[in-house]
């Protein structure tokens, strides 16, 4: 019995290690990876109380952004117990967006829909932006810079783990 348990543990450990080592050499579409990053950012952010009273967790972007399809695939995933819902920012009502994704392909200026939202630059915006988190392509990997001041304007704070993994924190 004990031997069977040991062999199961060995199989599980072997599978895990193999998947992780394969991922180290993996190449994926950057848009898919950036969308996954943005979902993780949502998990590592302390949200205001009113998020709990909402029925959905609205993420706003323009349909022209290259990330649109990847962000849409996350629909239904839970953030703070609410389902992730991608919304066209042009159709969002004031204060509706919890996350606003900026894209250089479709520049998005500050809107009422993005008030108190976590603004994330997908890495294609040239020059300064209102983004609290900027994704950066660096040596075929995705990194990110965090601006805690811009986040605090929206009443948001980040976990220490997120800040530790960031390339730059200002």
């Amino acid at each position, binding site marked *: 019995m004990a031997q069977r348990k040991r*062999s199961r543990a060995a199989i599980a450990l072997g599978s895990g290690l193999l998947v992780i080592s394969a991922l*180290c050499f993996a*190449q*994926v579409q*950057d848009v898919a990876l950036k969308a996954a990053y943005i979902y993780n950012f949502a998990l590592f952010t302390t949200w205001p109380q009113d998020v709990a009273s909402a029925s959905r967790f609205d993420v706003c972007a323009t349909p022209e952004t290259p990330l649109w399809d990847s962000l849409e*695939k*996350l629909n239904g995933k839970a953030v703070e117990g609410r389902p992730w819902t991608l919304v066209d920012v042009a159709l969002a009502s004031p204060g509706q967006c919890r996350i606003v994704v900026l894209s250089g392909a479709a520049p998005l200026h500050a809107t009422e829909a993005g008030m108190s939202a976590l603004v994330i630059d997908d890495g294609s915006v040239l020059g300064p932006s209102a983004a609290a988190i900027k994704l950066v392509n660096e040596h075929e*990997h995705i990194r990110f810079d965090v601006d805690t001041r811009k986040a605090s304007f929206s009443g948001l704070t980040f976990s220490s783990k997120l800040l530790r993994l960031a390339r730059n924190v200002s």
Partner: protein
Amino acid sequence: MRNTIPFRSENVVTNAPSMVSSMLGQAALALALCLTTLTAGAADFTSAVASASLDMPSDMDSATLADLPLETLMRVAVTPSATQPALAPALSEIYALRYLAPGVDQGALQDAGSQQRVALVTKQAGGF
């Protein structure tokens, strides 16, 4: 009289190889099962990982990636970007035109000779 546990060196010597071979056997079994799972492509995720390990562009979607921890995502390499600003190559060309090819105006090439010169200079400026 002191109670002592009799030490039998022959037990250690004879049991050690069988223990090691048993552990190795288990490890080999685990590895074989893992490889079988990956190559069988039982799930989208495992097949995506298998193709990714061959350095092929993967269609692993964002929903699958989102379930991975951030530390793991940071190790994943990306294919050439759709969201990266295309400023860098243009900038090197501008530098080449402005500083390395005197007499050639930016973007306004008068004759074939100028074009050849710029092509040569742009090649040289590839290390910018």
